[in-house]
């Protein structure tokens, strides 16, 4: 059997710490299928009430930006200072702004 047949697929695990918070990436694990990935994630990443909700996503389903192209990718917003509130000067005597 080839190495990839023997090894279960890799899943990334995201946990919502409590209501009102985003799911946050906490790590990864191997599992034969989605349902087992969820069970393993419960056992590995939430043994002490660390979460109220778990997402598992197969790692090969994630498309990520490459760090090498970070400059060109994020450059378009670098020179758009007018997107920030501090770009605008408001007189001192104008309240609540």
């Amino acid at each position, binding site marked *: 059997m080839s190495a990839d047949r*023997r*090894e279960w697929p890799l899943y990334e695990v995201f946990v919502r710490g409590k209501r009102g918070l985003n799911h946050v990436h906490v*790590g990864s694990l191997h599992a*034969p299928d989605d349902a087992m990935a969820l069970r393993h994630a419960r*056992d590995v990443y939430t*043994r002490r009430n660390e979460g109220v909700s778990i997402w598992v996503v197969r790692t090969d389903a994630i498309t990520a930006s490459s*760090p090498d192209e970070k400059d060109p990718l994020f450059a378009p917003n670098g020179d758009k200072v007018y997107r920030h509130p501090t770009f605008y000067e408001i007189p001192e005597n104008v309240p609540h702004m």
Partner: protein
Amino acid sequence: MTTTPAEPELQERLQAGFDATIARNDRIEPRDWMPDDYRRTLVRQIAQHAHSEIIGMQPEGAWIGRAPSLRRKAILLAKVQDEAGHGLYLYSACETLGVSRIELTELLLAGRQKYSSIFNYPTLSYADVGTIGWLVDGAAICNQVPLCRTSYGPYGRAMIRICKEESFHQRQGYELLMTMMRGTDAQRAMVQESVDRFWWPSLMMFGPPDGESPNSARSMAWGVKRNSNDELRQRFVDMTVPQADALGVTLPDPDLRWNEERGHHDFGDPDWAELAAVIRGDGPCNAERLRHRRTAHEDGAWVREAASAFASRSAEVAASASAGPSGGAGAR
């Protein structure tokens, strides 16, 4: 392979970017460029760390069935389960460097990757469960807290999760020993005997002295390690002495005393020849630990196969159900 004239320049640029990230005390993340040696060092260190958590379940695991009460059994089970979890966090961090967990498992089983020397000592009495929690997890905490700030992001994040859980490990061990120290003379003697056996091996957990730790300097320069072996060993001794006093046990070192001038305890040298022997494979339990790990791995093969078979069968059923006229009727 053809080398374009731009390539050495590119290498330099990548190296400079890496160096700048380290110099800023910033983290290196999985998809960043990194020098091959940095990657290799991390794989070796994280794998060794992961294997230690997994092998580390054995000495204490041996006492789960013999724990003296349901309360102690539940605590010990939870502690050993945590160690399995620590192993998995670390394998997961290691995999971000481009190695697979199965590869690492095979290297461990083949004896080609190491784990901490401490787990090659036997647990001869129930007091050892307490001593391991107090001293061995205590030493692990000293090692691991600075690693939360290690330069490789996934490793540091795994260490943060681990450190949160280690405090329970140390406290349950110390509480167990305190309970025994409040018991009979025989129980107190059992605690002292256990501490006598584990004290020196615990000090060895920090590795050889700085002068004989050739890769340390480079690991420190890379921010992989944050403190030297001797620094951490000293920190551990200083933390442990008052705990031993409070417990009422003696640490088996005639040279152990407070040094007013240094503001630290002086202490004797562990038997470095013994450490070398244990690392070489000649400790009291090296063969047993690996044999047990291999058996567990082989005994679990049918479970892994069954789960894979179930997963592919379910996928087939789901595919044919959605393709067929009835639709919707999945496997589950």
